């Protein structure tokens, strides 16, 4: 096992897949010469050349459209959007085109493409640079939504995404890039639609992904000192969703908390809470709790931002609310 940082796991996955399949190529804003704003593509232009690692103009809609067209010709494009905030500029391409084409063309086209983008707030980037909007895309049929939290999951799932015959939105997190984790030396791939129980526990199930996973694990440590054993589940992919692992955990613990960094109103947590009550209404000992961002644009001031975004303390409080 080697210890890698999250961004290095991205780089390794890209490097290995590019070396394995010459149809794979990368493009986006500043991905080439400088190796990406978050260093994810460092060294790849030097290794694979400027045709396969291509700096593009700042034109997010066209970047996604390029991926679609290139995929139709038989390439396997990996487009980087510098941040998820810019995916909003490309919404028409992602929602109206990427996600609709295979179905509306009666299965006539396949789009093996990956759109990578880092999301998230927490470092005073204010309203237009702090989005966690995975719920928008989970609400859109036709695109896979992969959202890993650890270097191990990043590498295994990014390789699977690149080999997928379907379009994938691969959401990274800006504040996780420097986190470390063990990654095997040998090749491995992780399947879509398989949640990972990151910490087993008998008293309450916490479902958390992306940056909320380390926060949930922190909360679990805090609660363990008070004698509460939390089971932490990371779905890792939100489309497809491994509903079974979540439901069977809640069936055992009878209590559930869902933690997400995105907004609370109509968030992914709302969907998961609905599914849990649909299937397990009579098994629940307490109402399902949601921990999420305050429904305001992310503020700049440090204290306000901290109030707006959820953290380990909020998750612990939600657990305590239904376990005491």
């Amino acid at each position, binding site marked *: 096992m080697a210890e890698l940082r999250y961004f290095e796991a991205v780089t390794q996955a890209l490097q290995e897949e590019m070396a394995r399949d010459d149809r794979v*190529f990368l493009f986006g804003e500043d991905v080439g010469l400088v190796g990406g704003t978050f260093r994810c593509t460092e060294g790849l232009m030097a290794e694979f050349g400027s*045709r*396969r690692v291509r700096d*593009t*103009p700042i*034109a997010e*809609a*066209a*970047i*996604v*459209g*390029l*991926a*679609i*067209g*290139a*995929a*139709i*010709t*038989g*390439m396997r*494009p990996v487009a980087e959007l510098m941040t998820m905030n810019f995916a909003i500029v490309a919404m*028409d*391409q992602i929602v*109206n*085109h990427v996600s609709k*084409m*295979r*179905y*509306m*063309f*009666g*299965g*006539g*086209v*396949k789009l093996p493409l990956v759109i990578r983008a880092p999301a998230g707030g927490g470092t005073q980037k204010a309203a237009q640079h702090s989005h966690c909007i995975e719920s928008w895309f989970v609400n859109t*049929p*036709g695109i*896979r939504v992969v959202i890993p939290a650890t270097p191990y999951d990043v590498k295994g799932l990014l390789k699977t995404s690149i080999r*997928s*015959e*379907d379009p994938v939105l691969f959401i990274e997190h800006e504040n996780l890039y420097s986190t470390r984790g063990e990654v095997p030396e040998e090749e491995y791939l992780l*399947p*879509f*639609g*398989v949640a990972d129980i990151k910490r087993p526990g008998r008293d309450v199930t916490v479902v958390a992904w992306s940056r909320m996973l380390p926060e949930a694990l922190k909360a679990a440590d805090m609660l363990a000192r008070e004698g509460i054993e939390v089971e932490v589940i990371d779905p890792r992919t939100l489309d*497809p969703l491994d509903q079974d692992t979540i439901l069977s955990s809640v069936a055992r613990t009878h209590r559930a908390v869902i933690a997400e960094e995105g907004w609370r109103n109509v968030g992914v947590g709302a969907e998961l809470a609905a599914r849990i009550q649909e299937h397990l209404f009579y098994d629940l000992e307490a109402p399902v709790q949601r921990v999420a961002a305050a429904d305001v644009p992310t503020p700049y001031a440090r204290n306000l931002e901290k109030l707006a975004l959820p953290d380990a303390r909020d998750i612990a409080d939600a657990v305590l609310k239904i376990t005491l």
Partner: protein
Amino acid sequence: MAIPAASQLKLYKNMLLMRRFEEGAAEGYADGFIGGFMHLYIGQEAVAAGAISSLNHDDYVIATYRDHAHALARGTPPEALMAELYGRETGVCKGKGGSMHFYDGSRYFVGGYAIVGGHLPIATGLALGIQMRNEDRVVMAFLGDGASNQGVFHESMNMAKLWDLPVVFLCENNFYGIATAVGTSSSYNEIHRKAQGYGIPGRVVDGMDVRAVRAACDEAVRYARQGSGPVLLEARCYRYQGHSMTDPGKYRSQAEADLWKKRDPIPRLARQLLEEGIATQAELDAAQVEANRIVEAAMQYAERSPEPSPAALYEDLFVENTFHG
């Protein structure tokens, strides 16, 4: 380069088929077989017929929501297209796309798209794929005049020139984006001049003259194919009907429409073929009978075809649906 006689007769037959197909579709719509939005191509036939005749069979064609004629020109069987309009499982997209979303990958017709300009970055990406794969192909991307005011049009032009991609952008300027005239929506009335800002050759062509369209596209396709980069062509033409089936088109004067109809591309080519001895009146008459027969047969086929089965609702969303095995 002169267009061979056989090709000219074929262009004539193609335009007749397009027009008769649209007339048949209008009947099917009036009879309640076809729903939703449907945009007819009547009046603009010279553009799709002429342009697509310039292409090799494996060049890509990408189109807007006004896409019936482009698929026909590519050779997609009319019965599969009519069945698509009727929402039947024998349709070219199994009844899931309808009028605005024809697709025939086997003929490199990669779709009709219903967000104005939204397909232009895809066209650019097709050309990027061609270039990266070192293939001898080009992309012919049709767009309307309205699309030239969209942001992605400009993003696409910029990238296409930046990397000298093999794509011909063919703007079918019919002078109206639904009801809004080009003069009230575009800083340039002459849309081909927008190419200048990107260092791309821009040309205007008479879109009511199929020979002129063919000649201009031959040149543009040759330019793109040899690696010189993109071209923007502006074919000036006129749709005789409203924007869609529900648009009576009251924003245009009868005098204006009459003026354009005098330049109708079908009788125009008929006259030229007769005068130049390329075809006889009997051949032209036979072509009309044949177009009528094909469309009638397509409508009967569509009507006879079954609707998609309920099981089809969840099919064709993803290629890979299993993840646990």
